[in-house]
C-alpha cells in the first residue's frame, strides 16, 4: 500500500546528508519507520545521563539546542536546524547520553530507529563517515574523553568547524627552530636569527634545550649596554625553557604563556627539557591558530567587500563572545573588544556605501548612538545612528543633504543585511530628522536641553550616548561641547532627565518578588532590560553629564569614574558598576542561549543561587535612585 506521508518525508530527507547518499527506495524504507515527535518550546528530548533512545534524530522544523553542563553551567554546544542530524550516540557508544537536547522553539523532529538505519550505515561508507563527523561535532564534551581520541583519528575536520574545536586543536608551529650552543657569541646568534627572520633561538646541549634567547633578551640585556655583543649567549639566555609535548592544544599553550609570562614555548619529544627539541611555539603562532581572534576579525572587516562577508564576521564575533563568557573573561574586556569590532563593522558599512556613491561633498561624522554608542552591545540589536555633516552654503545644502541621506540609506541597508534590524523608532541616520548639518544638530541639542518637555515629556536620552564610527572627530567634539555647555546649572534639564530615570518600573514588588510581565508575548518573564539595566544606564548617564564626565560613554566605566570624582558616594557607584556587569551577563547569556536580544528572562529557569544573585544585583539601583532624588531634588515630582 502506498504511503504518501513517508513519501513526503523521504523527499525532505533526500536534501540533507547523510540521506542524500541513499536511493529513493531506501529512503522510503527509512521514512516508513520514522516516528514524528512534536517538541514544544523548551521541551527536553533527552538530557545528560538519560538512557540511550533506540533512535537518532533529524530536525524537521524548528531549532534544537544541544548543551552540556560543565562547572554547574549550561554550555551550548550546537544548534541544530532543519535537516541537521543529532542524538547519534546510540550508534557509537553504549553508555548514557552526554548532552541535553532541548527545543529552542516549537520544533518537530523525526526519530529514526537505529536498527533500521544500521544496515545502510554498514553498506555505505559515505553515510558512516558523515555520521562519525557529526557525532564528533556533537560531542564537543570535555568529559567524553573515551570517544574523542578514537574519533579524531577517524575523520578529518572540515573547514566550518567552530571555535571550541579550533581552540582544542593542536597548533601549527615552527618545527625547524634555530638551535645554537651555549658557547655561541651573541653577535653571531643575532646574525643567524636576522638571516632566518626568526625572533628566537634555542640554546641546546646534545639537542636538549637548556635555554632560549629572544628579541626581548637583545633589547633588555644587550641594547641597553648590560652585556657586550662579544659575550656568549649563556650570559643572556633565559633558562630553564618552558617545554611542552608535541600535540599541545591552543588552549594549553595560551595558558602556559600567561602562567610563565613568556613569549615562546619549546616543543620537545616528551614534553620535558630532558628530551630532544622538536620545535618552537611563539605567541604569533597562537594568534594565527585562532581565526576568531579579535585582531583577525578586524582585519577581515577592513577587507570585506560585501554585506555577506561582514555578516560572517558578525557571526564569528558571536562565537567569540560566547566563548569568552564561557571562559569567564571579565565583561568589561568583552565589551571593549566587541565594541571595537562592531564599530569597525559600522565603519566598513559606511565605507562600502561611499565606494558605491562616490566621495562625499562635505566632511561629516557618522555616530553610533544608544547601546553601541556606549560600547555595551554584545547581542544583535537594532541599529541606532545619526549623521552630522559640516555646514555648507545655502545653495549647496539640498544636494549635500540628499547625498548624505542616500549614503545613510545604503549604509543602514548594509547593516541590516549584516543582521542589525532597522530601529523601530527610526533612530537612524537614514531618517531625515537625524541626518542634518552641524548647526541644525546644535539647535536640536539646544532645544532638547534648554526647553525639555516643550514638545513632549519624553527626553531622547538615546542621543546622549554616542560614539564616532566614521568621519571627522571634530564634529563629535563639537556636539560634546554643546551638551556640556548646556548642562551647566541647567536645573530643568536634569529635572527631566532625572525623572526619566526614575520613571522605570520597579523590578521587585512590595513582597520582594520579581515583577513579571503580566501580559503580551513575554508573559511571566522578567524584563531585565527595562526594569534592571536601563535604570543603571540612565543613572550613569545622568551623573556623568552633571559631573562633567567627558568622553566616557560606557556605563561600567562611568560608575567607576564617578566613584573617583565623587568619593562621598563612591560605594554606591561601585556597587552599581558591579550590579551592571552582573545584570548584563544574565541578559547576554539569555540572549545567546535563545538567539534573542535577551531582554526577557525566564525566572523559573534560573537556579536558586542565580535568582538570589539577580535579586541582589537589583539592590544598588534602589540606592542610586535615592541618590538621584536627593541630588537633583526630585522629591517634589515623584
Amino acid at each position: 500500500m502506498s504511503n504518501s506521508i513517508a513519501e513526503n518525508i523521504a523527499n525532505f530527507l533526500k536534501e540533507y546528508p547523510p540521506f542524500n547518499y541513499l536511493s529513493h527506495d531506501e529512503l522510503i524504507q527509512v521514512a516508513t519507520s520514522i516516528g514524528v515527535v512534536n517538541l514544544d518550546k523548551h521541551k527536553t528530548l533527552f538530557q545528560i545521563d538519560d538512557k540511550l533512545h533506540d533512535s537518532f534524530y533529524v530536525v524537521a522544523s524548528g531549532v534544537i539546542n544541544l548543551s552540556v553542563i560543565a562547572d554547574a553551567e549550561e554550555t551550548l554546544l550546537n544548534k541544530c536546524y532543519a535537516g541537521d542530524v543529532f542524538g547519534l550516540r546510540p550508534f557509537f557508544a553504549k553508555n548514557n547520553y552526554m548532552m541535553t537536547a532541548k527545543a529552542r522553539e516549537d520544533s518537530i523532529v523525526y526519530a529514526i530507529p537505529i536498527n533500521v538505519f544500521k544496515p545502510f550505515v554498514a553498506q555505505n561508507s559515505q553515510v558512516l563517515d558523515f555520521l562519525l563527523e557529526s557525532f564528533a561535532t556533537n560531542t564537543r564534551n570535555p568529559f567524553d574523553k573515551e570517544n574523542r581520541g578514537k574519533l579524531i583519528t577517524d575523520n578529518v575536520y572540515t573547514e566550518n568547524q567552530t571555535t571550541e574545536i579550533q581552540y582544542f586543536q593542536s597548533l601549527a608551529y615552527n618545527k625547524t627552530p634555530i638551535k645554537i650552543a651555549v658557547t655561541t657569541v651573541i653577535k653571531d646568534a643575532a646574525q643567524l636569527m636576522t638571516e632566518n627572520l626568526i625572533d628566537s633561538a634555542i640554546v641546546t646541549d646534545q639537542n636538549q634545550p637548556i635555554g632560549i634567547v629572544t628579541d626581548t633578551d637583545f633589547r633588555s640585556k644587550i641594547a641597553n649596554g648590560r652585556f657586550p655583543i662579544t659575550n656568549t649567549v649563556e650570559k643572556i639566555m633565559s633558562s630553564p625553557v618552558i617545554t611542552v609535548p608535541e600535540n599541545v592544544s591552543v588552549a594549553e599553550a595560551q595558558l602556559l604563556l600567561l602562567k610563565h609570562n613568556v613569549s615562546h614555548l619549546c616543543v620537545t619529544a616528551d614534553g620535558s627539557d630532558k628530551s630532544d627539541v622538536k620545535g618552537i611555539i611563539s605567541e604569533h603562532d597562537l594568534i594565527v591558530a585562532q581565526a576568531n581572534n579579535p585582531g583577525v576579525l578586524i582585519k577581515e572587516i577592513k577587507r570585506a567587500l560585501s554585506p555577506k562577508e561582514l555578516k560572517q564576521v558578525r557571526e564569528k564575533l558571536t562565537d567569540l563572545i560566547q566563548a569568552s563568557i564561557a571562559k569567564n573573561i571579565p565583561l568589561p574586556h568583552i565589551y571593549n573588544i566587541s565594541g571595537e569590532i562592531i564599530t569597525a563593522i559600522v565603519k566598513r558599512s559606511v565605507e562600502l556605501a561611499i565606494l558605491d556613491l562616490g566621495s562625499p561633498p562635505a566632511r561629516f561624522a557618522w555616530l553610533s548612538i544608544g547601546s553601541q554608542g556606549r560600547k555595551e552591545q554584545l547581542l544583535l540589536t537594532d541599529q541606532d545612528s545619526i549623521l552630522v555633516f559640516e555646514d555648507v552654503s545655502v545653495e549647496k545644502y539640498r544636494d549635500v543633504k540628499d547625498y548624505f541621506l542616500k549614503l545613510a540609506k545604503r549604509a543602514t541597508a548594509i547593516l541590516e543585511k549584516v543582521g542589525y534590524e532597522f530601529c523601530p523608532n527610526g533612530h537612524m541616520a537614514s531618517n531625515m530628522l537625524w541626518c542634518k548639518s552641524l548647526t541644525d544638530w546644535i539647535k536640536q541639542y539646544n532645544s532638547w536641553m534648554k526647553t525639555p518637555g516643550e514638545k513632549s515629556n519624553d527626553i531622547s536620552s538615546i542621543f546622549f550616548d554616542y560614539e564616532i564610527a566614521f568621519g571627522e572627530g571634530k564634529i563629535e567634539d563639537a556636539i560634546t561641547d554643546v551638551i556640556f555647555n548646556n548642562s551647566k546649572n541647567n536645573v530643568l534639564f536634569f529635572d527631566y532627565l532625572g525623572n526619566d530615570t526614575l520613571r522605570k518600573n520597579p523590578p521587585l514588588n512590595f513582597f520582594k518578588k520579581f515583577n513579571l510581565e503580566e501580559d503580551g508575548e513575554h508573559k511571566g518573564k522578567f524584563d531585565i532590560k527595562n526594569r534592571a539595566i536601563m535604570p543603571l544606564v540612565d543613572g550613569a548617564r545622568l551623573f556623568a553629564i552633571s559631573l562633567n564626565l567627558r568622553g566616557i560613554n560606557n556605563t561600567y566605566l562611568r560608575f567607576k569614574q564617578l566613584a573617583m570624582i565623587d568619593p562621598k558616594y563612591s560605594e554606591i557607584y561601585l556597587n552599581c558598576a558591579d550590579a551592571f556587569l552582573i545584570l548584563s551577563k544574565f541578559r547576554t547569556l539569555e540572549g545567546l542561549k535563545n538567539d534573542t536580544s535577551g531582554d526577557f528572562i525566564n525566572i523559573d529557569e534560573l537556579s536558586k543561587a542565580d535568582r538570589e544573585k539577580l535579586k541582589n544585583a537589583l539592590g544598588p539601583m534602589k540606592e542610586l535612585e535615592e541618590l538621584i532624588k536627593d541630588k537633583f531634588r526630585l522629591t517634589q515630582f515623584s
Partner: protein
Amino acid sequence: MLDWIKNINKDYPEFWKLYLAKFETKSNRYVILSTETTGLNPKKDVILSFGAIGVVNDIIKVGDNFEVVILQYKYLHDNGLSNEFLIESKLSKLAEPQAIQALVDYIGNAVLVGHRIHFDIEMINEVLEKMECGKLKNEALDIEIMHQKLYDITNKSFSLDDLIKLYKIPQSEKNSASDDAYSIALLFLKLKSRLGFK
C-alpha cells in the same frame, strides 16, 4: 428504542465481529483520520478518500498509515473531480465496501482523532449501515473542540487551516487527505501536551 436488543443476535459480517472483539481491551493507540467527501450531507454525499496515521506514546508512526481512494462511479461524471485524482493518482483505490472494511480493520479499537471528527464518523456509519454493520464504537477526539477548550472559546469555530496557522504547523504544498491527517496529528500532539492529558 429497543434496537440494541434486536442487534444482539443479528448476524454481522465476519470483519465486523472481529472489530467488535477488539474492544475487549483498551488501546493506547490514536488514529488520526481525515476524510474527503463530496459534501456535507451524510445522506446524499459520499466519501472520496481516507487518510489516516497512527500515534502511540506521543509519537506519530509514519509506518502506521492508511490511505485509500474510493471509486465512486456514480459520481465520476458530475462531481467535477479530475481523472487525475481518481484514476491516475498512485494511491490505492478500492470500491466503497472494501475501503470501509479495510478502514475498520485498520483503526481497530484506537481512539479516533480528527477535525470535526463526528462528521467523518457519521459518513462512515452511513456506509456501515448499508453493509449491515453497526456503528463505529471508537472513542473520538475533535481537535477543534480541544482548541476551544484550551482557550475557553465557545462562540467561534476554527477551520483546519485556521488551526494550522495558529499553531504554526509546517505545511506541505499538497493537500490530500493524508497530508491533512499528518497536520491534524501534529496539531493533536501540541494540543494534547498543552491540555496536559495523557
